[in-house]
C-alpha cells in the first residue's frame, strides 16, 4: 500500500533528490553526439512531413514554428509534448527508435499537422 502514496505525500527533499538524479542522467545523455534534425511548422503544415532517422540512436529535433499561430508538437508514439509560440523554436531529444514508423502531430492543428519519423 505504501507504494501507492501520491507524489504529494513524498517528502519534498526526496522529490528534489529525484529531480537531481534525473538531471544527472539527462545531462550526459544530451552531451553525447546526437544527430540533429530540423522540422518547420507553419500553421498546421509540417516541412518535411517525413523525417528519416537512424534506428537505434538518440536524435535531436529542432522545431521551428514559422507560422502565425502557436503550435504544440506532440507525439504519443515518442512521448513528446512541446508547446511553441509563433516565431519560436524548441529542441527535443528523442530516445533511440527501433526500425519503424513513429507519428507526430501538431495538437493545435491536428487535421493537417501530421507527420512521421521513419527509423531505418
Amino acid at each position, binding site marked *: *500500500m505504501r507504494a*501507492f*502514496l*501520491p*507524489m*504529494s*505525500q*513524498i*517528502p*519534498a527533499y526526496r*522529490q528534489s533528490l*529525484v*529531480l537531481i*538524479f*534525473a*538531471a544527472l*542522467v*539527462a545531462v550526459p*545523455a544530451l552531451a553525447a553526439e546526437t544527430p540533429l534534425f530540423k522540422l518547420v511548422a507553419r500553421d498546421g503544415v509540417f516541412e518535411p512531413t517525413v523525417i528519416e532517422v537512424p534506428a537505434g540512436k538518440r536524435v535531436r529535433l529542432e522545431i521551428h514554428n514559422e507560422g*502565425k*499561430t*502557436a*503550435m*504544440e508538437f*506532440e507525439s*504519443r*508514439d*515518442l*512521448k*513528446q*509534448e512541446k*508547446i511553441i*509560440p*509563433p516565431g*519560436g523554436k524548441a529542441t527535443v531529444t*528523442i*530516445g533511440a527508435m*527501433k526500425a519503424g514508423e513513429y*507519428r*507526430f*502531430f501538431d*495538437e*493545435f*492543428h*491536428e*487535421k493537417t499537422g*501530421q507527420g512521421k519519423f521513419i527509423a531505418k
Partner: protein
Amino acid sequence: MGNALFIVWRESAEAMLVVGILYAWLRQRPDAATGMRYLWGGVAAGAALAISLALVMLGIASSLSGNALDYFQLAIVLVASGLIVQMVFWMRRHARTFRKDLESSMARNARAANWWGLLIVVALAVGRETAETVVFLYGLAAQKGGIANLPIVLVLGLALAFGTFWLLQQGSRVLSWRLFFRVSEMLLLLLAGALLVSGIEKLIALDVLPALVDPVWDTSRLLDDSGRIGGLIASFTGYRARPALLPLLVLIAYWVTMWTFLGRTGRPAASAAKPATAPTAGAAREPLPRAEHH
C-alpha cells in the same frame, strides 16, 4: 474559428471537470460556504499559475529554462494525479459519513485540513491546461487581424467552458445523487490515470525511466490517438494506440489498486484511510470517523 473553439474547449474541459464535480459535491454539504471559498481560491491560484506558465512557454519569462519547464510540468501532472485520487477517496468517505461527522466539531476542524488539498488540486487542474490556452490565444491574437477575432473566441470559448460546467451541475440535479457521484468518481479516476500515464511517459522521455517494451501493441487502426476524437480520449483516459510496457503496467497497477479500495462498495472507507496517513497531504490528518470501524 471552429478549430480555435474546439481547442479552447478541450483545454478547459479538464479544469471544468474537476471544478464542476467539486462544486456540485460541495453544494450538497452543510459546510458549503467554507468549501466554496477554497474552491474559488483554487481557481484564482490556477489562473495565476496558468499565466506564469504561459509567460515561460512564450519565452517572456525565462526563469525556467529548457528541461526545468519539463520537470515542472512533470511534477504538476504527478501531483495532480495523486491529489485527484486522494480527493476521490475523501469524497467517498464523506459521502457516506458526513452527517455523523458533523455531530463532532472536532471532525469538522480536522476536515479543514483537506480544504488546502482541494485548493491545490483545483489550482493544478485549472493552471495546467489553461496555460496552453493562453499561449494558443496569444498566437491567435498575434495573427494579422487576429485581435479582432480574439474577443469572439474568448467569449464563445468561455461560454463553451461554462456550458460544460452547467451540464455537470444539471447532471447532479437530474441524475440520482448516487449515480452522479458514481459517474463523476469514474471520470475523475480516469483523468487521474491519464495524468499518471502522461507523467510516466514524461519520465521515459526524460530518460529517467525505461520504456521496457515499446510499443507493446498497435491499435492505431482501431482508434488513432493522434486524431481529434482519439486524442481527446487519450488525454482523458490514458489510452494509447501504441503503448509502452512501463506506462501500461503502471496503469494496470493503478486500476487494480483503485478497484481494490473503491470497487467493493462494502468497505471502501476503512481502506481509504490508509493512503491518507502520510504527513504532507492535507486530508491525511483527518482521523477516520469512528463510525467506520465495524
